[in-house]
Every structure is written in structure tokens, then in C-alpha cells.
């Protein structure tokens, strides 16, 4: 993944601040390389900042028109009446991503414990490979499977509640769960494998069973990494568009009577992404206020995804540097210290 030569350390400066290069050896060449690397990471960060700035500027008219509170908490979106409230879509996104996490987190973490602790060698590679393959399936394929299979299944499962169709927030959530499962599982597996082997050996030497070792020693140490895995999965769930678009129903302005009322979950809804993916984006183009409202939604979405992902990455970095500082795992698992961030690079 990364080149083994010492200068490569500089490739991920924000994630590995402790591993500053030993300056006494290479002098200027390393300095130059460092500069390039800093520039490269600066460029990456600037892309995000630029995007945020762009969306903020373009969405300015709607913040003026509705007010920050009015836009974020407004419960009516009706562009012909120039009313732009984003809350139903924020609600839809939250519900869909929440359902996805509820389903994918236990499954993904369980699978990760199994692959990291339960099996080894070829079997591990086979299981892990199969799950990681899921991550490579294009989301539109998931969407089509959702339309073909999941809609009917959900429709039938919800029949006691008399749903109108199989296009519901629940359908979107279940579909997303399948999609983020490999993300959660892979990162969690990396976090678990990142726990030093010596810790396990010590635990076994003290007479703990394998289960006890996993529960009492490995899991607590891998906790930040596991949380990171869940957060990164959540980040993907929040931003996923086309698959959700196809099965969520795209019904505007659906909010529950009270925050505990679950009925809208079994009905059609709208997420930030399904709104942005719809034809209203094209309609809005050319009308400054309407366009601002659309870019406002994009800004909210980007901020949400960025917050969650940054949280995940920083947790992952903490977990990785924590276990790396304790002791290295030795030659048994190459590149385990990198953990999730290594695969992120």
C-alpha cells in the first residue's frame, strides 16, 4: 500500500505526527519531499474547504430568505411557493442512516470478531475477501436489487401495518445496511487485528479462555477503532444517493407527529440525497433562490458527512497510534499498525 522507504512516513502527516523523520540522516532531500507531501495534503484539505466555501456562497440567498433556523428546522418544502424547509429531508437521512447502522453495526462487528479472532489463514482471507467484494458492487446495482427484491419483501413484511407501497424509509435503511456492511466489517477487522499479539499471548498465559481474551482484552483495546468503523460506515450511509433514491419513495414533507412516533418509517420519505438526485435540481438551475436552496441542502449534507467521517478517521488514528505505541505486533501481520487509515490512503 505504501512504499517501505523511510520518506513515505511523511505521506500521512496528520495521522502519524509522532513519526517525524530523523533529520540527521537525509537532510535536504527529505526536506523537499516533506514539502511536496505537505503541499499534497494541503491540496486535499483545500478541496474540501473550497467545496464548502463554494456551497456556502451559492446557498447564501436561501439562508437570507429563510434564516438559518428557518431553513434547517422548517418543515415545508414547496418550491412553487418559495418555501424551503430542510427538516423533513434531514429527518429522512437520519432515519435511513440510523436503520442502516442498527442493522449493519452488530452484523459487521460480529463478522469482524469472527474473521479477526475466530479463524485464520485461508478461511479468513476467503470470508474477508467475500465481504470486501460487496464493497465493490456499484451502488446502482444495489438500487436495482432493492427495486426488484427488497421493495416486495418490505411491502409484504409491513402488511400488518397497511403500507401504501414498498417504497419506504425502512426499505432505504435496509438497503443501506447491506451497502455499508463491508465498510464496517473491514475497518473493524483491521482495528481488531491491530491489537498487539503479545497482549493476547499474555492473556492466554494468565489462563483466560479465548472468549475471555477476546471480550476482556482485545475488544476494549480495539474500541476506538471499532467506533471508527461504525462512524465511517455511517459516513457512507449518509452520502449514498442512487440506491436510496430508487427505493425511498421521494415523498416530500414527511415528519412524525412526535419524535417517538415511528409511523413515517414505514412510509415513503425523502432524504437529502434523494432530493439532490431528483429532477428538481435541474428545475432549480437558473432560479437563484431555488438553486440556493438546493445547494443549501448539499452544504448540510456535506457538513454532516464530513463531521462523521472526520470523527471516524480521528478515532481510527487514535486507536492505531495507541496500539502501535504499546508494542508492535511483530512480523505476524504486516502493516497492521496502519489499520483503517492505511486502507484509506
Amino acid at each position: 500500500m505504501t512504499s517501505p522507504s523511510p520518506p513515505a512516513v511523511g505521506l500521512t502527516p496528520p495521522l502519524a505526527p509522532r513519526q517525524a523523520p530523523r533529520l540527521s540522516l537525509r537532510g535536504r532531500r527529505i526536506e523537499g519531499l516533506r514539502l511536496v507531501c505537505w503541499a499534497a495534503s494541503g491540496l486535499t484539505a483545500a478541496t474540501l474547504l473550497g467545496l464548502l466555501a463554494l456551497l456556502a456562497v451559492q446557498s447564501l440567498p436561501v439562508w437570507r430568505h429563510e434564516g438559518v433556523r428557518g431553513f434547517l428546522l422548517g418543515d415545508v418544502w414547496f418550491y412553487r411557493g418559495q418555501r424551503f424547509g430542510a427538516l423533513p429531508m434531514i429527518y429522512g437521512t437520519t432515519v435511513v442512516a440510523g436503520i442502516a447502522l442498527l442493522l449493519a453495526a452488530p452484523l459487521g462487528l460480529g463478522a469482524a470478531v469472527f474473521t479477526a479472532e475466530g479463524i485464520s489463514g485461508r478461511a479468513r482471507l476467503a470470508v474477508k475477501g467475500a465481504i470486501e467484494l460487496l464493497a465493490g458492487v456499484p451502488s446502482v446495482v444495489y438500487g436495482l436489487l432493492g427495486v426488484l427484491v427488497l421493495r416486495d419483501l418490505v411491502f409484504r413484511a409491513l402488511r400488518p401495518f397497511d403500507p401504501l407501497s414498498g417504497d419506504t424509509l425502512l426499505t432505504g435503511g435496509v438497503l443501506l445496511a447491506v451497502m455499508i456492511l463491508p465498510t464496517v466489517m473491514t475497518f473493524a477487522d483491521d482495528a481488531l487485528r491491530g491489537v498487539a499479539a503479545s497482549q493476547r499471548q499474555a492473556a492466554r498465559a494468565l489462563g483466560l479462555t479465548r472468549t475471555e481474551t477476546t471480550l476482556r482484552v482485545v475488544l476494549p483495546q480495539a474500541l476506538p477503532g471499532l467506533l471508527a468503523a461504525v462512524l465511517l460506515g455511517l459516513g457512507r450511509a449518509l452520502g449514498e444517493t442512487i440506491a436510496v433514491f430508487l427505493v425511498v419513495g421521494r415523498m416530500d414533507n414527511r415528519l412524525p407527529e412526535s419524535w417517538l412516533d415511528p409511523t413515517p418509517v414505514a412510509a415513503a420519505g425523502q432524504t437529502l440525497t434523494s432530493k439532490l438526485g431528483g429532477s428538481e435540481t435541474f428545475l432549480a438551475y437558473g432560479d437563484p433562490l431555488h438553486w440556493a436552496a438546493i445547494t443549501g441542502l448539499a452544504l448540510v449534507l456535506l457538513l454532516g458527512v464530513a463531521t462523521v467521517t472526520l470523527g471516524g478517521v480521528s478515532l481510527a488514528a487514535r486507536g492505531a497510534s495507541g496500539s502501535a505505541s504499546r508494542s508492535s505486533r511483530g512480523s505476524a501481520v504486516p502493516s497492521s499498525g496502519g489499520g483503517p487509515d492505511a486502507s484509506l490512503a
Partner: protein
Amino acid sequence: MHWRCRKNRTSKLLTSLATGAVFASFVLLSLVLVSCSGTSEPGEGRAGGALRVNGSTTVNPVVARAAEALRAEEGMEILVDTQGGSSGGISALGDGRIDVAMSSRPLNGHDHERYPDTRFHPVTLGYDAVALTVSRDVWEGGVRSLSRDQVRGLYEGEIVNWKEVGGPDRNVVFFNKEPGRGTWEVFANWLYGSADDAPLVELPEVGSNQEGRSKVGSTPGAVTQLSAAWADGETVFALALVLDDGIVVAPTADHIADDGYPMSRPLMVITDGEPGPQARRLLDFLLASRGQALVAEAGYLPLDTLARNEVARESPAQEGSAQEDPAP
């Protein structure tokens, strides 16, 4: 750059940070520049490359097959897309992002208001109707026609069960065509006089004709606005309308041709100003016999089957030759 600061890590860090900041501002600037230039300059890039077509999924089958033929026979480069439906195509044309827009609704005042510099040049290819189409269980349950009041009741959520309009005891699932789609605009114009007066409704939405047909076909109690030609009579069924004077008209070719069916509409391709040479070739193909055969094949009405007064249309066909012999 010779900076000897090996002992001083802080200053080195600062230098690196400064470099990063310079890069950051550079990227920021270029992003802003790109965003500014993206919205201006309509008509740019139209000279070279492929002919870019975008818009209505209703018009698409005809144009896509014409494009196939032109690609195969004349080696023409044509890209046909259906992003955002009719309004998406019209706004893309107004912004100069495409060369030809496909539309299943007439141009309206908003289009001209929004793109005052664009000289919309519409050419009508044929005619079609918007039908209210229902799933099999509704059709077999006895619903064959609806009045305007009934349609309004269904659309606004006042009628929630099909038995209220003489159908089976089943919930109404109205899949609303996305606003901005030609089909929706024609529907809203008929129901409310103007699409601007359409009220806020809470309905699940569908986009393309394919999506509308498959969702209605697979959902009991479903209804949607759909191009009449796409109602296959196997999974989705087109309802007739009961006019205000009590006459029942189905969206058949005859009733579209004699203007008896209220939600009929022209299918158009639109260029900005006179069509360029490539667009001209596409238009000629579409208006000649082979193109018109494609119109008929897709289930729409070719121009020569039309027996009505063209002047009544907002956008009359530009090619007089195509409609010399009206035969219902």
C-alpha cells in the same frame, strides 16, 4: 530554497503550513473561477464534437433510435440523455450545455423569462397524451374513467380509497410525476389551469416513464400520470377522462388527433436559434418518413395523422410538408 532550520522544527512546520496555505488558496481560487465560468457563456463548445441531446424520457425513445440510425449510417456523433426530463433539457439548452432539448410539453412563459437570451426554436415531431394509468387490480376492480374532480381528489389526498370512485376496496397510492417533467406540467395545467397554481401535495414521486410504469405495475392500488403510449394494457392501464359535459374520452389516437382528449401534447425537439448542421440532420431525419415511422412505433401520433388546426398549438411544426394530408 535553502533554509537551514534543522534544529528548529517549529519554523519548518510553519514553512510547510505556509506552502499548504498557498496551495489551498490556489485551489480555492480555481474552484471559484470554474464555478463562475460554468454558468455563463451559453453556446460555448457547440462547434466541435458530438451533438448533445437531453430532456424528456417520453421523446427519448424516438430520438434515441434516430440517433442510432444516424450513428450507424452516417457516422454522426450524438449523445442522448434524459437528465431531469423536459425542464431539465430546456434549462440545459438555455445554459448552452446541450445542443438539442427534447420536450414533452410546450414552452411556457417561465422558460422565456429564465433564459431571455435563448432563442428557443421548437420543432414538433408528433403528438402524445398524458394518461392517468392504474395498476391491474384497480382496472379490474372497475375503475375505467375519472372526472376532473375525482382526479383532483385523488391528487390532493381527499380520496384515499378506490371504492370512493367505484373501484375496489383498496388504498390509493398516487405516484406523482416529478415536477419539472413534461408529463407533470401537462397534467397540472389541465387540472389547475396553470402549473404554478398546483397546490402542495404529499405524494411519493417517480421520475422517468420506465420508473412510473414499473412502480405502478408492481404496486396494488397505484395510479400515476404517464404518457398514454407507455400504458401497455398488461401491467398498467390508461383511464379515460369524464369531461365536464359528461362525455367520456379515452387517450386514444383518434381523440388525441381531434383534440377531444384534454391532456394531449406535442412532442418536440428544441434548438437555440436555427439548428446547426448536425442538429439539422437529426431534425430532417425525424421529420422524414423514417423518423415519423419511429414516432408511430413508439406509440405516439406522427404528424400526418393529425386532423386538427395547427395554429391552435403554441409551437406549430416548422415543416409544413410533414402535415399536408390529414387523415384521422
